[in-house]
């Protein structure tokens, strides 16, 4: 683990990704404690204030401090995105590995189903699911997880297929191990590295997808300080008070860039051929 970190720091994109993601996680954990104001406290006299010494990032249309809202919103935005990706990855990885292990007709059936789900654009699928289940952050999480699972299943299966041909899997079958043991203990640990890389990169997509859903009014609901929702609400005041839309947009972009860089760095480090 420490060895991986050290090698990450040696490549520029890995080091930068690690720093950005580290900062974001710090904000997620201790951010609310450092927020100067209550994120939902309205102040009619302090509306539309540009960035100043009093309000570092300015205030919004209800006079709420944007910095405080961003610090509080990090938890909802980043945590939900990571959870949604993790859930989607877990489902996808298991489906992909099982499919590769079974092979033959079952593999064919599973993968064609996955193809069918994949042919629906992920945003459309997420919209569909949220519309069916109702608007809420939790449902948005499930929607994103489900939208990611087929892609992860494909990636995992392609790796698992080569693992399936390894003799340690044959040895386990010849030994009479159960299918669950072979998938869980023999195959999954050996496909984990590319999955982790893929997952880190997908967190960035999840953040953006979450922001998109909230922007469309289907994810987090006002007065939550979710970043996508903040962008959506600030849209109307873009011309007079551009900072209102600027800061949350930058925050979303930073998270996306950070996780992307981290994923690139991890790919280089975890690939044994490099």
């Amino acid at each position, binding site marked *: 683990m420490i060895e991986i970190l050290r090698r990450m720091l040696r490549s520029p994109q890995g080091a930068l990704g690690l720093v950005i993601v580290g900062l974001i996680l710090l904000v997620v954990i201790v951010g609310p404690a450092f927020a100067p104001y209550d994120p939902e406290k309205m102040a009619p006299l302090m509306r539309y204030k540009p960035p100043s010494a009093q309000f570092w990032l300015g205030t919004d249309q209800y006079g709420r401090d944007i910095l405080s809202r961003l610090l509080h919103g990090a938890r909802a935005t980043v945590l939900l995105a990571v959870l949604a990706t993790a859930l989607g990855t877990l489902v996808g990885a298991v489906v992909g590995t099982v499919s590769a292990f079974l092979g033959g007709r079952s593999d064919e059936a599973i993968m064609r189903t996955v193809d069918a789900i994949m042919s629906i654009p992920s945003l459309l699928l997420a919209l569909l699911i949220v519309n069916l289940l109702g608007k809420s952050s939790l449902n948005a999480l499930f929607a994103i997880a489900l939208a990611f699972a087929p892609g992860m299943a494909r990636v995992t299966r392609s790796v698992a297929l080569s693992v399936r041909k390894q003799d*340690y899997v*044959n040895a386990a079958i*010849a*030994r009479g*191990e159960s299918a669950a043991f072979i998938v869980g*203990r*023999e195959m999954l*640990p050996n496909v984990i590295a590319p999955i982790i890389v893929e997952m880190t990169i997908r967190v960035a997509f999840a953040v953006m997808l979450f922001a998109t859903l909230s922007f469309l009014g289907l994810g987090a609901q006002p007065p939550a300080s979710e970043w996508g929702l903040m962008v959506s609400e600030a849209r109307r005041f873009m011309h007079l008070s551009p900072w209102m839309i600027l800061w949350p947009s930058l925050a979303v972009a930073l998270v996306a860039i950070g996780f992307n860089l981290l994923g690139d760095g991890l790919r280089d480090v975890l690939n044994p051929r490099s």
Partner: protein
Amino acid sequence: MGEPILDIAGYSLDYATPTGFTRALDDVTLAIAKGEVLGLVGESGSGKTSLAWAIMRHLPKSAREAGSIRLTGQDLLKASEAEIEAIRGRRIGMVFQDPSTSLNPTLPLGEQLAEVLVRHRSLSRKQAWAEGEERLAHVGLKVPRQMMRRYPHEASGGEKQRVVIATAFACQPECIIFDEPTTALDVITARQILDLFKALQEETGVASLYISHDLALVSQIATRVAVIHRGRIVEQGGVGEVFARPQDAYTQRLLAAVPRPDHRLVEAAPETAGKPLVEVEKVSVLYGRKPFLGRLLGRANTQFTGNREVSLSVKPGEILGIVGESGSGKSTLAKAMTGLNRFEGEIRFAGRRITGLSDMDRAYRRDVQIIFQHPDSSLNPRQRIREILSRPLALYGEPGARKDAAAIGALLEQVRLPASYAERYPHQLSGGEKQRVAIARAFASRPKLVICDEITSALDVSVQASVIELLVDLQKRFGTAYLFITHDLNLVRQIAHRIAVMYRGDLVDLIDVAALSGADLHPYTRSLLAAVPAPATAAA
């Protein structure tokens, strides 16, 4: 001896690694004269291939060199990039180990041969194709005109290697490097390629550096031999001299490890009166799915036959060797017997009938174990040795039996590994040690039959000798029967009681090892025997 063509003096090579420089070649001094074949013998990792690439001037950026490599007086280390490009292919040729990877799969064979001629002999394309055809005919290809237009996948391994050799000889180079040119080929094909090599060598008088790990083979074709060990040339001299009176301790060890059919390692076969332990009755294996749609549309069955009605039997405590070239169905049979392949027919084990995968219960799986060829792939890289060895104990151990660290330590000591290895991961072990762990895993359940699927072919000769010794020892201790699958006829004659010969999915011969020199043999067995190079000392 006149002026040497290739003269390597005090050549050292280091590779930069994160932990400092690693020495790959250490003070290598070699000379090859015109018309001479220098056999370079060494085990994997000894620096043979590094030397070949150093001569070809194709080294990674992390390489650091010292000394000199001279081609007819010109120091290649000091030559410019342009000079090297003019020398490569023109004055030094190279033949690689595996023709299926050294030829570009997207270009016709003729294109690849003609390219060399166009580039180095300034022929026009048309001339080059005509010349190429001639070259292919020269290396014994029956239909050179068609062969020129074929893609690599349309030619057999032997044909491809002939094309590679034709390419290497195409510009009449002064020196050719052969990097294990027959290792990837079947015994009989390898024999033919060697004959071709000898004929071309005599005809052109090229200075050849023949790299190989196979001592028997080198003893037959080389005029002089150099033994390389960990980057150092430990001994060099005339073939007869080195093989008959090896001076260096390493060479002596290496020669002693070469399998010799006349040196039997096992006692006589168990008395024939005993009931067979396992009987394989007309077992057939078909690969590929039954074409459901194809049958509806009336298409022909496209299934591929792996085994065709193979019948054999193994007595308790007997070692049955199975030999045959790659694709002959040896491993297919092993997989069928361990439930990794569907099969038709019947296996009778200790009196029980087994007609399919569902009949293979825990008792059968405990009694029949398999050891695979590559220990790298048969041990899960993410599990510690302890974990790997604990699975068979957990699955087959008697309820009261120990499954603790002591039991695993005992298993490791049984294969002569220290008990402390239990905490290691497979990648922290050498190839031979990994194979010992695989053997320990197979013997953990006290099986009655162990199927060894080419278990020594990925190992060096000296490691192979110790693994075989271990197997023979275990056989004596536990009376286990082996199904020993290999392509090495010399090795199998050393340890097997009976030998089964397979050819294209059929069992063509099943004979006592003593009868192998007798008369009543299948023609394929006969040609297989003729193709095997005799052990090294026979040349002395």
